[in-house]
């Protein structure tokens, strides 16, 4: 037994009592258990603000992050399998030589771990006109992109495979090698270049790499790195709803296909330096600016000059600025209808305001934006009166689509359905979605974090979760699955997703496929409403799999619904009641009471809008 193992002699900040407890706890454990405890502690530490920089618990890797110093990572980018074979050969030899090795295809490499990587070997081919293999595009883009971390800790070696009859022979490996140097990394072996007959070159290069690796990695790297106190981050300014943080846009990517009749964006914002912290389930509040085209439409319709300064509430701003930054232009309000009815004296408008006309009024609010009213019932507005009659602009909330444990607290992801449609003869926009969709490198998005304590993953990580998130309602579940994977929970994850078309609108399809493969997601049920003559929605899938869903709930699963409140949430609720009644052999009233109890306990949580 290994009870006789001596405790490691490390400088510690723990007192003697805690050290003794730790020694008792770890006595007799297997190396796997000990590594697990190391990873567990690292994960705990990552939750503490001062240690957030160490939050490196990305995709589960064979070896805990703390082991990166002793480990040789071998990554291959292969199109035809040659690079893969060279990498596998090298990995086999390195393992045989007693080294700690992890072998990964470039597409599976957890990019977040690069900043902690110490010894990296890349074997990669160049295709056609100097392009990386398909599977390595993301890897290469990340390293060559603006978000690549500095890599002073990294020692690396690159082997390129190519065909010297192409003008850009081994372009990918050459650029990668140069870029890693640029990022502060150093070579532990020279750049290798192998032509079509790569075998001998590759073997020679691999032998050289192995020899150096054995020298560099033979001494177990001190874990003292983690025991030494890290410098504390000084307290950042508090950002909030009223003091939003101007976030840079890291990515603004359409995530529906070119043939989709909708536009949905995956937006990545930088929170670096904001001090903002978020958890899965939280939302980001975005202070939008109205679309410039819409402001233009207002000014031309009302024949007002945007440059004219207008004073309101003690502030003087140009009218165009009031309209773009300060006032609600996309949501019709009762007060505006009243003002417009009074100003125009139009009978139609006055009638919908009469008592008993609630239904007609509601229809008006739903079908019209303010600009439609201004056009349909023209009247002249004084700029100051207009600003006074319009409601102040309010922030829009977006459920967060990332886990800080995976992407870091310096970054937050959103899933934004872009509201843009034709009505009353012109294009209509949603304020925040149009603003976010139009963002680029230079845009700063004013944001804050809106906590949502009622939409939290179970504290008991062995609980199963069922997530129902059609459309952009998928967002928080991307965060949930990332979080559950990063914390290596034992509970199962079941996702229901629906949208219009499989080929066009399957949001984050590639990520869900990977999650299913890696075991981060256990079930995925899909409903695409426009792919068949008969429209199919998630509630139908809930009914189809009712027996199993009920069994999960009986065993303590937590249930989450996110997305459209007008139809989906109601239909899903009905389907759940029906499922509970049928499979739980309960009366409708009992089913209702049971579901209400789940809501009460926080086991059934909804984030609908």
């Amino acid at each position, binding site marked *: 037994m290994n009870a006789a193992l001596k405790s490691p002699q490390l400088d510690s900040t723990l007192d003697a009592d805690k050290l003794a407890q730790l020694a008792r706890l770890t006595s007799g454990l297997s190396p796997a258990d000990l590594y697990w405890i190391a990873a567990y502690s690292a994960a705990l530490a990552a939750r503490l603000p001062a240690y957030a920089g160490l939050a490196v618990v990305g995709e589960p890797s064979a070896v805990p992050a703390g082991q990166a110093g002793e480990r040789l990572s071998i990554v291959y980018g292969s199109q035809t399998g040659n690079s893969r074979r060279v990498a596998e050969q090298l990995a086999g030899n390195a393992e045989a030589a007693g080294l700690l090795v992890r072998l990964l295809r470039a597409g599976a490499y957890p990019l977040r771990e690069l900043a902690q990587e110490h010894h990296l070997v890349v074997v990669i081919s160049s295709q056609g006109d100097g392009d990386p293999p398909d599977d390595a595009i993301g890897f290469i883009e990340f390293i060559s992109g603006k978000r690549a971390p500095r890599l002073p800790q990294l020692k690396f070696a690159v082997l390129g495979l190519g065909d010297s009859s*192409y003008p850009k022979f081994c372009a990918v490996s050459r650029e990668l090698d140069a870029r890693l140097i640029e990022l502060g990394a150093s070579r532990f072996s020279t750049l290798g270049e192998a032509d079509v007959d790569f075998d001998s070159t590759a073997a020679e290069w691999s032998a050289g790499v192995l020899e150096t690796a054995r020298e560099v990695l033979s001494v177990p790297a001190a874990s003292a790195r983690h025991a030494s106190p890290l410098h504390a981050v000084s307290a950042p300014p508090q950002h909030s709803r009223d003091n939003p943080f101007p976030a840079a846009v890291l990515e603004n990517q359409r995530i529906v296909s070119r043939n989709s009749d909708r536009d949905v964006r995956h937006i990545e914002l930088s929170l670096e330096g904001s001090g903002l912290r978020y958890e899965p389930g939280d939302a980001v509040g975005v202070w939008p600016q109205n679309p410039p085209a819409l402001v233009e439409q207002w000014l031309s319709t009302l024949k007002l000059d945007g440059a004219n300064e207008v004073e309101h509430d003690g502030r003087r701003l140009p009218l165009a600025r009031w309209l773009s930054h300060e006032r609600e232009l996309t949501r019709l309000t009762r007060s505006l209808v009243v003002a417009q009815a009074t100003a125009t004296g139009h009978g139609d408008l006055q009638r919908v305001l009469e008592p008993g006309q609630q239904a007609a009024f509601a229809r008006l609010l739903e079908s019209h934006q303010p600009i439609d009213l201004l056009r349909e019932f023209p009247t002249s507005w004084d700029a100051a009166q207009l600003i006074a009659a319009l409601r102040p602009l309010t922030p829009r909330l977006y459920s967060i689509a990332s886990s800080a444990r995976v992407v870091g607290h310096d970054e937050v992801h959103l899933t934004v359905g872009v509201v843009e449609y034709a009505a009353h003869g012109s294009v209509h926009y949603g304020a925040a979605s149009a603003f976010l969709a139009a963002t680029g490198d230079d845009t700063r998005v004013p944001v804050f974090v809106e906590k949502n304590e009622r939409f939290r993953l179970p504290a008991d990580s062995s609980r199963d979760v069922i997530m129902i998130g059609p459309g952009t309602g998928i967002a928080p579940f991307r965060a949930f699955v990332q979080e559950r994977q990063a914390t290596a929970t034992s509970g199962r994850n079941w996702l229901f997703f629906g949208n219009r078309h499989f080929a066009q609108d399957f949001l984050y399809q590639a990520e869900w496929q990977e999650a299913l493969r890696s075991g981060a997601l256990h079930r995925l049920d899909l409903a695409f409403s426009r792919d068949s003559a008969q429209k199919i929605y998630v509630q139908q899938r809930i009914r189809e799999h009712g027996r199993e869903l009920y069994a999960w709930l009986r065993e303590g699963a937590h249930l989450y619904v996110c997305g459209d409140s007008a139809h989906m949430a109601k239909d899903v609720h009905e389907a759940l009641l029906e499922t509970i009644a049928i499979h739980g052999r309960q009366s409708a009233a009992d089913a209702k009471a049971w579901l209400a109890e789940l809501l009460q306990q926080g086991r059934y949580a909804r984030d609908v809008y």
Partner: protein
Amino acid sequence: MPSHFETVKQESRFLRGGIAEGLADPVTGAISEDDNKLLKFHGSYLQDDRDIRDERRRQKLEPAYAFMVRARLPGGVMTTAQWLAFDKIAGDYASSGLRITTRQTFQWHGIIKRDLKPTIAAIDAAMASTIAACGDVNRNVVCNANPVESQAHEHAYAWAVRLSEHLEPKTRAYHELWLDGEKLIGEEEVEPLYGPTYLPRKFKIGLAIPPLNDIDVFAQDLGLIAIVEEDGRLAGFNVAIGGGMGASHGDPSTYPRLADVIGFVLPEQLLALAETVIAVQRDWGDREERKHARLKYTIDRHGLAAFKAELEQRLGFALQAERAFRFDHNGDRYGWIEGHAGRWHLTLQVESGRLLDNEAHTWLSGMRELAAIHKGDIRLTCNQNLIIANVAAADRAAIDELVARHGMDGYRRHSAIRQHAIACVALPTCGLAMAESERYLPQLLPKLEALLDRHGLIDAPILLRLSGCPNGCSRPYLGEIALIGRAPGRYDLRLGADFRGQRLNQLYRENVDEAALLDVLDQLFARFAGERAAGEHFGDFLLRAAVLSQPRLIPLKVSA
């Protein structure tokens, strides 16, 4: 050690594998890589739209997967009813019309996963099949399509059909998967010729009737040259083995090879001959390295004599000495030709074999209209063209009018090089393509025509073959001029095949762009225009003028 796919075949329960489960998986439009290889035996495989592959990766979507489906149509002959059914399948399920392949059949592109079963079922309902249109089995049997010698053609076609049926896989998996056939329970599946692992690689049979080599008989694994007596009687077939086009860039252990004529068999010996050649290849072929698995490598590894000896021993009789034959050319004869019994046949040129409705021509609507009035049959050629066959003299005018009205009469106007151009599909659907082919042909041809015109060669027939990769679907190694894709916009230029499909071309410029290609060809066209002998073809000229070296006439043989 057998290659991975040999194990997959072995464990596939006669081509079932996990195909049914893969088709039912709603999370992806694809099926697994192993199942995709098995699916080939059923006449289909997975592709994706490479034009938007990277765009979709950024969109966090899987590639735009869709299936290619290929019919098995021995000899390329179909009825008008079948034409209409195939046309409807194109409209209902496919993305880019009908595509005539270089092996005399149709394929459809862009069929999404949930439409795969209905598509194959519809092909079956049209009295055709997709079984063994791809995969490690005997593929679609091609057969001389030119109906000048109509009676001999009928005989040859009948043999093509018999070969096709005789060599079809017998597994019930096809019926189970696509036609709701009952599952075999308890009964043992038998695959008497192929066995559970089928062949080491694809196997192609083609049947030519001299003097026309329109099927490129020497590019076949098993090429059959019909020997027709003066009285029109079919005496039998010369047997040629070991042809094949595919190669890999930069790998000299792979190469195109022309078939060797090894003897002659009587008609009644034909089925046994074909079956036995396949059986020897089944047993002797390389099952460790797929790129060395075609019959041509088996023959070169064991030696032609050893292969022939094994073949004759298994057959129990010796092949007769080969009979004399002569081929004139390997192209199609455009326009009307009179066959026997006063029947007429009209050959139309289809650029790259792609039938679509667009501004220049309306092939789909035109042929739909034609199929409604035509009383004969329709044939596809290995040069991607089609023949309106068996027309009464009185009906010719109506067909001419229809053909002209739909812009399908390009053959009347096309330059000689355009009439002899073949291109494979390549981008965006073909997973193997390294460069454009079908989409590049319409851009390249006007440039070549301008050069030829400048040198007074616009009427010189020159075989032009474009291929997006070195695997050879367009039989590029038999082009007098051939472009073989290396990378976007870059090709290997090969020159100097003959005009009859009996001499391979040679690599002349490696990995060059269009400007370099046109520059080289401009110079060679100038010399050809000035120095050519009467009736001399471009490829022959290049050898005579010593632009190219004389090829070795005896194929390289490596003793075992």
